[in-house]
């Protein structure tokens, strides 16, 4: 509880400081609008913001679902075949060395201005952290469990299902939590490159028209959305690592 109080307090202090600077320095609203103005703009544009938030949120949620599923399937495939690991792991690592953001324009070219190029961007960003976290967990099964399974003449696929996967769920949970942080970033970048809807699009549009207050309102909405997503995913994955 005291964490919440501290969070509210520090946010309050930051907002007060922000308003003071804007008032004292008498900054023009297109350079830096104060929090009061941003709040007013947010309220007067609430329906537009809500509409764009819904677009970004669907991109993020679909991106997460697809990216996490692909990551889980890939990790399990790699964990069950050494040959696959030898071939695929270097490729995975190499793709991580590429700046995936640079692919955003080409994704837009391939998939168009709609939802799918943003979803694809989010999937690209979260796929690797999920795959590598889960694969790492699958490859680190405590040796004692594997010894026991071996003396029981266990079938490799059944050992995977009954021992290695459950033992790796906490690792998967941390990969998923990381994905929840990355997914909104991916969607926003996709929107920046080319979109006609979404919070990223709205921010770019507002910026272009020197409506800095609207830009801030959209950005803060994105921030709140990301935090809520983080809390939700944390809540949903809380049981993955639990043992009792």
């Amino acid at each position: 509880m005291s964490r919440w109080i501290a969070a509210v307090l520090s946010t309050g202090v930051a907002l007060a400081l922000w308003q003071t600077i804007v008032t004292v320095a008498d900054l023009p609203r297109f350079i830096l609008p104060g929090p009061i103005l941003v709040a007013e703009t947010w309220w007067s544009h609430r329906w537009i913001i809500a509409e764009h938030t819904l677009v970004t949120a669907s991109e993020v949620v679909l991106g997460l679902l697809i990216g996490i599923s692909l990551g889980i399937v890939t990790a399990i495939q790699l964990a069950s075949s050494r040959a696959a690991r030898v071939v695929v792991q270097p490729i995975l690592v190499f793709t991580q060395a590429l700046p995936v953001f640079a692919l955003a324009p080409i994704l837009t070219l391939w998939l168009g201005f709609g939802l799918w190029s943003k979803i694809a961007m989010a999937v690209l960003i979260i796929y690797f952290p999920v795959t590598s976290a889960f694969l790492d967990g699958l490859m680190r099964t405590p040796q004692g469990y594997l010894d026991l399974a071996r003396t029981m003449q266990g079938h490799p696929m059944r050992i995977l299902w009954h021992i290695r996967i459950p033992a790796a769920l906490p690792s998967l949970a941390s990969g998923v939590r990381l994905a929840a942080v990355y997914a909104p970033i991916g969607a926003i970048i996709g929107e920046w490159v080319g979109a006609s809807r979404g919070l990223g699009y709205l921010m770019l549009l507002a910026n272009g028209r020197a409506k800095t207050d609207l830009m801030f309102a959209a950005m803060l909405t994105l921030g709140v959305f990301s935090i809520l997503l983080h809390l939700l995913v944390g809540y949903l994955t809380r049981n993955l690592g639990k043992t009792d």
Partner: protein
Amino acid sequence: MIPVPGITLTGQATIHGAALFAPLSLSLDAGQWTCLLGGSGVGKSTLLRLICGLPTGAEFTGDIRASDGGDVSSRVAYMAQDDLLMPWATVSQNILLGAALRGDPRDHGRLAQILDRVGLTDHAAKKPSALSGGQRQRVALARTLMEDKPVILLDEPFSALDAQTRAAMQDLSAEVLRGKTVLIVTHDPIEAARLGDNIQIMSAEGLMDVTPPTGPIPRPVTSLDVLKTQADLLTRLRKVPT
């Protein structure tokens, strides 16, 4: 009842070219308890893992055979100091693990019998984290029993337990594993004196056979013969160069 074979391991082992143990011959008599004592690092766990068919850090040359000529590693059940219970599975699921891993049908009738024998019936639906150390080790014993193998290999199974729980586990194990060929690695001279039909002290030179106390196992701790053997074992263990 499945016929119970004896096991003989003959050979020597090296680690990175250096001798771990000299040529030796360890015989586990059919239906008897063999206790293996010895200093830390002499290779007791290695011997046991070799019989299980598990990977070890050592290169072994020699052979391991069953008195009836059959396969060895497919007829052993293994229990270690770490209970190796799956924390996400219930007591019952842990006991049925072997069947799940092989895809065999789960024998719930036998499960109920075994739960009853080890006194865990009331705990069947609990997760291991809700159990005491002694109860967890009873689950591990139940899982070993469920495997229904004729040869049982125990690597310091009770060493993490307090003295009275350990004595209770020794009684229980001697009762439920009666008739099986058992190898137990232990650091505890009392355990060896109570449970060994055959007691061996292992050192780098090989095995030393120690005469066990008289009487059937589990022998009472109060028996003078058990106490004498215990003292004798401790004296010998302290003399063995480590």
